[in-house]
């Protein structure tokens, strides 16, 4: 049984908002979406200068890129047990929209998840 996705976006990720996801990297602005195929949920995120500055659930995807994922895989990825790239190449996730931007976002987010894994949905933003 997985915790609700709002635990991640509303609590864990919220602790990392408004500061660079990666130290020394401020090079990307993007609006993107994470679509939970099995839940029918969309979470829209706004990245500015390498920082998450907005995150909200929505009924529709917004932004240039949408990552499609099922909840179990999502928790593996944000827990640092699988990289976004590996999940994509194993067809466990899909990228819709701007593929170039999507791959770059996947790289950035993968490094963030590696450094700040969220285990079992616990609300712990401590660095690994």
């Amino acid at each position, binding site marked *: 049984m997985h915790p609700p996705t709002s635990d991640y976006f509303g609590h864990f990720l919220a602790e990392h908002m408004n500061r660079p996801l990666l130290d020394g*990297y*401020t*090079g990307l602005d993007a609006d993107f979406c994470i679509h939970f195929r099995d839940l029918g949920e969309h979470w829209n995120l706004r990245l500015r200068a390498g920082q998450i500055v907005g995150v909200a659930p929505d009924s529709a995807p917004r932004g240039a890129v949408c990552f499609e994922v099922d909840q179990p895989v999502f928790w593996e990825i944000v827990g640092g047990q699988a990289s976004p790239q590996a999940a*994509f*190449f*194993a*067809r466990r996730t899909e990228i819709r929209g701007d*593929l170039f931007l999507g791959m770059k976002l996947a790289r*950035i987010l993968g490094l963030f998840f590696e450094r700040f894994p969220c285990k079992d949905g616990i609300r712990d933003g401590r660095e690994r």
Partner: protein
Amino acid sequence: MGVNADYLGEIITVETEPGVALQATVGYQDHTPLDRLLVVFPPHPSLGGDSANNVVAALFRQAVARPVLAMTFDYRGVREGRVGETSLLAYWDRLEESRDFRPIVQDAVAVIRRVRDSFNPDAALWFAAYSFGNLVALQAAREVAVRGFAGISPPVFEYDIAPLLTGVPLPIFWIAPQDAFCPAGALDGLGTGRLCVREFPSEDHFFRGSEEALAGRVLEGLFGEATEERPADEARVSANRAVCSGPAAPGVGGTDV
């Protein structure tokens, strides 16, 4: 890249400039001839590209199995996540802005020369490149003589590769018709020299699930059937302008452009 148990492999570390060390993974079997070396170039680090990429790994594995002495490597900063004090992504963003990839090309040339010298300084070089790796490989081919070149899905809308095509004898390009980075027709009329374009059925740029079949076709196009030494492809094709080098695969189109 991990080294499988069914072949020999070694890691060679090369310091290409103070503070910049690259690692090459070299694969071979006991009976692998050392008269040729295949270099496999990975895709873009900013997009997650490294020597463990699915296409790169398939090319490397299958080359070693043929057996062909093969090497691949990671571009600067990929293993460390940084280049000096600069984060990997920030460093590569700067390269992208400048469009000056000379440090990366010089790294590649230095690593290739070191590996070749370690095994056989007279080994002929063959290049196989995927995505962004095409840009690096084509530039490196201007500094070291290359016997054969296979490029997979060169991102022609992102980079101008046309001026670089004269550096290789007869490049063979493999494209997926629906690839947004290099769709069917994108290579038509490119450059002034001759090149061979083959289509490989795949839904996009990434060849997920078909990387092994792709790698087999690419290597077959470069080297012919396993263990068979082929004469210089460029000479054979010059005599017959209508034929791309290497055998065409079932379901795979071939266009001599």
